[in-house]
């Protein structure tokens, strides 16, 4: 059975492990109400968490297998293209592109 009342050093160790393995949601879900409170109240945890993130960046980011930059750039371009398309087809954009209809003001005009 999983430990449901972890001490602060155990929480930090599990957080560091989750961050290293890329499974932060598993750690977040494993937290109990009591553990959440323990984390909130502990300044040491937040100080240490900052170093854990740095260690993660320095120790493991270089080993991460990332995509080819050229392929990634085309992914970004596709993302931008879809944003452009969305902006063109959204009703808000259409409204702002054209002049407002003047029928309302005409209705308000008093007949001579």
């Amino acid at each position, binding site marked *: 059975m999983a430990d449901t009342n972890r001490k602060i*050093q155990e929480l930090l160790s599990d957080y560091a492990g989750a961050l290293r393995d*890329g499974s932060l949601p598993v750690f977040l879900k494993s937290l109990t109400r009591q553990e*959440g409170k323990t984390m909130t109240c502990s300044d040491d945890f937040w100080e240490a968490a900052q170093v854990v993130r740095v260690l993660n960046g320095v120790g493991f980011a270089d080993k991460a297998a990332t995509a080819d930059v050229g392929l990634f*750039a085309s992914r970004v371009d596709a993302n931008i293209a879809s944003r452009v398309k969305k902006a063109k087809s959204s009703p808000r954009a259409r409204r702002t592109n054209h002049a407002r209809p003047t029928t309302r003001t005409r209705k308000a005009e008093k007949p001579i």
Partner: protein
Amino acid sequence: MNRRLRNALKGLTAPDDDRRRRAMEPFVRETFQMFIRYLYRYLGNEVECEDVLEDVYGDIWEKPDRLRDVENERQLLRTVYLYYMRKRLREVYRRMNRHLYLSQNDLTNLTAPELGTLDTMSQSELKQALGRALGRLKARERRAIELWLDGMSVRAIANELKTTVGAVKMLKFRTILKLKKMMSEYCHDQ
């Protein structure tokens, strides 16, 4: 900042949409490694890093105003983190929040925190600071951190150091706090 990155930034902040779109490719080429390494600190997962970064670049294309006055790489990274990455990082775990026993504030602090002194340092500066700090630790403390950085589990480290899992967790916690103090001192000295 190198010339290609400076030119790409100039193109990105141009008023013309097409020019901005053309400038995005060289910008991605120049910054991809820097940004993905930075994001890896917070996510530890290549796939999620790429997904977040794709949206970050999209946001930069849409609203590049924040990058107008950037003068060097450190400033660029800081600006991109504060105005583009943080928003996206928060979104990664926002949906989970209703099932968690963690306040929204703590969740944000854990997944997309404010920038501390260590966060603003470049990768090479951090490596240097960490190397120095590790050199000042006791042999057992240094060994625990080095084994951890080699990818060993807590149990494996306990076996290696011939101690218990609980003792290793405590040792790691104290050592990390020590490291924090030493690295902060290094930051102030610099």
